[in-house]
């Protein structure tokens, strides 16, 4: 925890308040959290492929609302920009490229679902244990401005520059990898250049024997 964040967030003193008299914000936080959980469950259980993607929109948008309630404004908008605006659009794009039928897709069920459930539960248990153990009864006072662009930017580029840059190198590697994979392995067949009108070949000319009628184009 950095000093600026500490200043913005107030003390980490043990709670002088109880959990039995929640404020309005806390109630909303729990309700939105339940909605996110429900949407996430629907995402993995619905039998309709595109509906799963749309429920994902609800879940990710709900997460953005949770960030907002925690006064992490910057993170919330970035969440909307990256996940709702780009990732889900990409997912929908991919689904539309495949056969994404309207109605149920019976073959969408995976045989791995019990394994997946086990992994998900184990991950959730680990994370919940970790967070609960890390913070226990400490109380972070959410003063305004703790999650503002200035505060996030300062701590990101003053204290966390190295992890940030390491992550960008990782993303660069992923980008290069994607380019390599999409180049299809063979550099020999150059793709036709997009964007230029090419003169159409006469339909009658066989493409394999261009030498028999060499002057077709001049005659036209």
């Amino acid at each position, binding site marked *: 925890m950095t000093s600026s964040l500490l200043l913005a967030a107030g003390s980490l003193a043990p709670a002088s308040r109880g959990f039995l008299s929640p404020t309005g914000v806390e109630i909303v936080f729990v309700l939105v959290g339940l909605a996110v959980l429900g949407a996430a469950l629907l995402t993995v259980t619905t039998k309709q492929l*595109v509906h799963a993607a749309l429920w994902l929109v609800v879940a990710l948008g709900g997460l953005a609302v949770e960030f907002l309630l925690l006064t992490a404004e910057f993170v919330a908008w970035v969440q*909307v920009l990256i996940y709702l*605006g*780009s990732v889900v659009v990409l997912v929908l*794009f991919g689904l539309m490229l495949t056969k994404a039928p309207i109605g149920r897709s019976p073959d969408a069920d995976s045989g791995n679902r019990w394994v997946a459930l086990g992994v998900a539960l184990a991950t959730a248990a680990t994370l919940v244990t970790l967070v609960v153990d890390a913070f226990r009864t400490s109380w972070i006072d959410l003063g305004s401005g703790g999650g503002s662009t200035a505060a996030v930017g300062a701590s990101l580029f003053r204290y966390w520059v190295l992890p940030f840059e390491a992550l960008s190198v990782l993303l660069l590697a992923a980008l290069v990898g994607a380019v390599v994979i999409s180049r299809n392995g063979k550099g020999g067949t150059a793709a036709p250049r997009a*964007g230029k009108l090419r003169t159409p070949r006469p339909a009658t000319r066989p493409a394999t024997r261009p030498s028999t009628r060499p002057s077709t184009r001049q005659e036209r």
Partner: protein
Amino acid sequence: MNLLDTLLRCVAVLVVFLVLPLVIGQTEHKVMAHMQGRLGPMYAGGFHGWAQLVADGVKFAQKEDVVPAGADRRVFQLAPAVALLPYLVVLLAVPVGPHGLVGQAVDAGIFFVLAVMGIGVLGSLMAGWASANKFSLLGGLRTAAQLMSYELPMLLAAASVAMAAGTASLTGIMDAFHWWWVPWQAIGAFVFFTAGLAELQRPPFDMPVADSEIIFGAYTEYTGIRFAFFLLSEYGGILVLCALTSVLFLGGWHGPLPDSLGWLWTLLKIFALAFVVIWARVTFPRLREDQLMRFAWTVLIPLALLQLALTGVIKVAISQ
């Protein structure tokens, strides 16, 4: 800020959202007509057909609301709202004048407006998929591809202004503005405005709704009030794009008149830009899909990066 104040601001934004897009729509009728040497709608309402859009609205409201038999009902019906509402929300954060004349000052304003604008495209995607129509699906695909390509230059151009002002808040940018920012950020303004046009699917970037090829893209199956919502979202999008361009690149409420008339300058700049949007529609032929992608990746993104570099260099130079 008490409850009454908040409520008042929300109502004001709602009124602006309900009025200005219609004004832009009517302007489009008239400007297009005159540029093409014809009159445009002349009868409804008497004076130069001013009530044509109202008549259109009444017609749309009266039409039967048809949902195709093979369509996914709920998604199909939800799509117009998803397309329209984001623009209303964006308008809340756009500063109109000095001294807090803004719906709600958002700290990370640039991120907020661009993020929420991106959601509107989900509406087109939902419409395209849920219509159970191949033309709609093609339109949805093209919409998604176009958004993917044009979101990046738009963000980069906006980031350049944020760098120049040293803040991501729209009101903060307005306070830091100097007149010489206009030539300094001119390339960014071009990139932002062009990419915005493409994101709104306005001509010459209207491949997703190209009527001569795929009927009306994602909106093919829509009639009545839901179709009107899509049209309204297009005009609302023009309003938002023009407002953002004028705030980020043209100085918003800054102008020769005293500060109390700042909102007039904002309006003036918005309408001048809206005129350019309509002008571009009449002037340019539609780009082909591959030309569209090519333009984004080989022209706009390098230009946006150039603008970022330029902003960085000059920013460092003047802060010495």
